[in-house]
């Protein structure tokens, strides 16, 4: 308990703008990731792109937690992020399974292949 609090307190004491840096990163990751979801063709990359979008979102949440830290950082966004990571991984694993299955059955690796094939 002391560990977490001390750390949080220390962080709070030191930096006022840390969270701003990470918020900026968050917005960049979100945008790049979203662009990647739509623009990347390969299933593999699309899935990675969703993960990057997720990272952007989580980074914002954690930044907010850091911003709102008192004796310790706001635990609610942390909990949200942990939950979110699990959910995102589940979805990504499912997507990956689907992509592999498609690849195995049809040797397609992107939706455009599908369009070209049909």
């Amino acid at each position: 308990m002391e560990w977490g609090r001390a750390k949080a307190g220390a962080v709070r004491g030191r930096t006022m703008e840390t969270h701003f840096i990470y918020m900026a990163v968050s917005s960049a990751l979100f945008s790049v990731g979203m662009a990647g979801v739509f623009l990347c063709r390969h299933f593999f990359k699309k899935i990675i792109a969703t993960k990057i979008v997720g990272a952007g979102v989580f980074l914002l949440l954690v930044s907010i937690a850091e911003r709102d830290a008192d004796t310790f950082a706001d635990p609610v966004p942390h909990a949200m992020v942990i939950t979110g990571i699990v959910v995102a991984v589940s979805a990504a694993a499912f997507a990956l399974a689907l992509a592999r299955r498609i690849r195995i059955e049809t040797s397609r690796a992107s939706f455009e292949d599908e369009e070209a094939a049909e």
Partner: protein
Amino acid sequence: MSLPAGLLDGLLALLLVILAVRALIAPTLYQCAVAFISFGLTLSLAWARLAAPDVALAEAAIGAGLLGVLLINSLRDFSRGGDDASAIFGKDLPTALFSRTVISCGTLAFAAVLGMAMFHMPEGGGLTALTEASLPHSGVEHPVTAVLLNYRSYDTWLEIGVLVVAMLAIFCAGGFEGFRRPEQGPDSDPVIESLARLLAPLMVMVAGYLLWLGKAYPGGAFQAGVVLAAAGIILQLAGWQIIENLSTWAWKWGLGIGFFFFLALAVSFMPLGLGFFEYPEAWAGPLILVVEVLATLSIGLTLTCFFVYFNGMGASESRRRTR
């Protein structure tokens, strides 16, 4: 803001963005995967910088670790190379230049707007104070655990549910429920095998420690579960085939027990007049511990199953090819 700290944050930020972009436009999938795993690890550092050790653990374990393994594992099937940047931006130079500019500008513009929104975000204040005030009644000492397993246990329960759903979904994707035993014997090399013999018990111990730690310190069911899963995956790679050798009954209960027990716990005090997910204050601590143990088991098993099933999909594919 001290200069070294600021410099570190700035470097991390830059690295994150570069790795993210790299992960998307690297010429080969392998490079993508590597960039992505690096990205995940870098992100863990960022979490740590943001005073979020729980998240850092979870991210390192799940986001980078497990998903990295899954990605690398999938590369077998996608070995014929991926698309590079030209797939996104177009092949011939003028088009590529143009679309590169447009896409970059668009993305930047959106990022700018989003960043502005964050910059102008009012101070909502968060729930830190409230959490702290309620912590004594939660049965645990670590606030994140308190939120996860008490205040917002409903979400957590659903989230464990998501894992079960994802398992089912992956079964759907694979087209069969359960795990296939590969026909040929395990093709592991002795180095990994001996390493696994060494690491696996250690990792189970680490998992148990993390779980126990979670009550008061960063750590907890998810992290512990992931470490457990890591142990399982290493054993699997070593050719142990634990899951395949479990009886259907066993792995199913293993997968479901966390969710099921959580649910049972949530309703079991309702006859006493308490609400859904409401525990008697005195019992909260032990009960949460039990939930965590079972959840750890389920999570670890589920994640291992993900991997095992992925492996099996490839195996079934190779079987088909040989036929």
